[in-house]
């Protein structure tokens, strides 16, 4: 799968890359440091990702703001977007679902738990039929 990973935290990016490598998954990760950068990636004409992993708390354009713009786009709105966050805030959860998401995954504290969760997410989306816009 082509995965667009939107995350400002360097360690988080390392965590994902390392987990994908450790699990020997063949997914291609495209990184973006915030919403603005992600939109630029999506509009640069290159192949669109299959899924988006989106962090909520980011500088400049945060996750929910990015999500809104994405869902207003006639083409991009079909991209399954999974929130990957430490926020257990009920308000964030509700708002994300209201705008439209494909999943909401809370980053666990323990790294091994993180690896386990990420594996399940990848496996799940790997077997899904996806719209190729």
């Amino acid at each position: 799968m082509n995965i667009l990973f939107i995350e400002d935290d360097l360690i988080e990016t390392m965590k994902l890359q390392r987990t994908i490598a450790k699990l020997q998954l063949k997914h291609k990760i495209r990184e973006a440091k915030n919403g603005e950068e992600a939109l630029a990636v999506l509009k640069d004409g290159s192949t669109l990702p299959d899924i988006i992993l989106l962090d909520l708390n980011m500088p400049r354009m945060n996750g929910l703001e990015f999500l809104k713009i994405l869902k207003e786009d006639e083409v991009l709105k079909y991209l399954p977007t999974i929130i990957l966050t430490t926020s257990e805030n009920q308000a964030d959860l509700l708002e994300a679902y209201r705008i439209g998401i494909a999943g909401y995954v809370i980053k666990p504290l323990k790294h091994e738990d993180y690896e386990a969760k990420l594996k399940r997410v990848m496996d799940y989306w790997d077997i899904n039929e996806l719209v190729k816009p």
Partner: protein
Amino acid sequence: MDNKEVLLLKRALERQKKARLQAEKILEQKSKELFDAKQHLEHANARLENLLNEKTSELDGAFLNIIDPYVVMDLDFNVINMNKSAKEFLGFDHSKETVNLSELVHEEYLQYTMESIATLKEVGTLQNYKAKIRTKRGAERFVQINSSIIYNQTGDPIAAQGIIRDITSETEIKQLLSDQKKQLDVIVDNSPLGFVLTVGGQIVKANSTFCNFLGYLELELCKLKVSDISFKEDLPASKSLMEEMNAGKTDNFIINKRYKRKDGSILWAKTNVNAVRDRNGVIKYQLAIVEDITVEREKELMIEVINDVAKAILGKMDIHEIAWEITKSITHYLGSEDCIIYLVDRDKQFLEQIAAYGDKVGHQGEIYNKIKLHLDQGIVGTVARTGKAELIGDTSRDKRYVVDDAIRYSEITVPIISEGEVIGVIDSEHPEKNYYTKAHLETLKNIARLVAMQLKNAINLRERLLTEEENKKLLEELQRSNEGLKEYAHIVSHDLKSPLRSINALASWLHEDYAELLDETGVYNLKMIQEKTESMDNLIKGILKYSSIEYDKLEYEKVDVNDVVKHIREIIYVPEHVNIVIMNPLPVMVADDTKIHQLFQNLISNAVSHIDKEEGLVKISSEETETHWKFQVEDNGVGIAKEYHEKIFKVFQSLETTEKSTGIGLSIVKKIVDLYKGDIWLESEPGSGTCFYFTLIKQ
């Protein structure tokens, strides 16, 4: 002249002589006849005269035989003749004794009698002589005598004859009647009730009481119709009743109506109208008995308006609404065109117009040109200061009078007093001088007393609402800052949690990548780093939970506490040697499921984790009080020393420093118990166990 002619003339002459002789003879004969007739008439006349005299004597005889007493007397009152009836009546017989009739006349009537006799002599007859006499037997009788003079043949008066009628009883009845009439007149004239006789609406008689009622003389009243002294508005009601009476359906009706006094003022009266009919049932006249009920009516009106006000303001808590109802009722009652209620503002020392009725008020009930009076300004101000009601008949002579929208000459001003303090003033004005009465004043005072408490309550309510409004604003601000805080807590926790995750990941990578290169201590320290991140993560979660317990977010649903405990038994870690036992069926209560879970989970896991015995036992039980559910969570763990019993409920107060204990659990418990208006306390024996008690209100 020829012989023939002479002959003819001689013959004619001869005929004429003969005719004259013949005529003379007839004339002579007629004169004789006339003479004879005259002679005859004279005879007849004489005979007739005798006959007449005889007849008169016969007539006299008849008189003697008539039933009524008959007396003939000479002109000096000496009796000449009397019939049997007269003898019986007068008690003497003229043939046996000489009686002079004048001696029988009562001395009071002597003068009158002499005058009467003189008249009789002059005129020849006397009708209807009435006098009191004393009969020979000594009885006093009233007599009526019709008499005439008897003349002799030459036409001189020689005697008088009379028929006596005993009218004693008749006179007595008349006297009685007259006496009774006088008595009746006294009664009628001195009655507190007015009596009026009318014929077809025209007044024909009225007693003095009625005249006094209206200030008319009887003479003046008798020129008026009932409609002249009535009010137009009352006419339809009396008209229909009158029609019923005219139709013969009733003989009597009672109506409460107003009468117009001569001076234009009103008399309220209860009028009882009675029909007096003739034999054929046609109404001859109406008798109206009129009772002045002005005082009663005023009382009635007073009660009516007080009732009206009481009803109108019942349950109303808005000052303006209450005041408006009062002004409306009062204006109606006073027949006035203006009524204003002022409210005293003690802080600012002025009077504010809060409700008005009349010209001062618009369609929406808003008051035009609201004026504000300082306490002490105007009549209203004085009343507000002194607390004494005022009745002013002529405001133009009162220096205090303040012109509002128009000059009016009468003013009535009454304070509304609550707990000894003037809280408002009722004020009404009228363009006529001396319009308001003492009854009006009494009524307004009563109304003021009646509304005082409710108005005071309404004022308090208004103040409370103002305070509440401020409180609401404060609360909203608080809520906003609370929201901000919560948001802040989330942001901070996120900002704290992210680095924790990074640290944890880095430590685990170190371990993964360099475990072989590290010694035992190095590996242990890496593990410690991870454990510390865990306890810090728990702390952050706890703070978040604690800050999100809010009263207004509570759900109300049925919560079976048995299920809650069973569920907790499944989700928390319970070592093999510890038993969690429900001692009695726990209640099903109406509460927020999540909060009850949090509450029990914190207490149970606390209990479980503090067990140091080989056989651990956590006992959960409950009992019901009138208002609350009382729960008990008891363990046989380490126990808590007395000095910590208060402290443990405070945030971040933990008695130990393991990664599992954040010091927030019991604070959350306390906060939830507080939400359900309950208490929490504990009994503990260090070494042998702890028992937590808490109560939750029944919904």
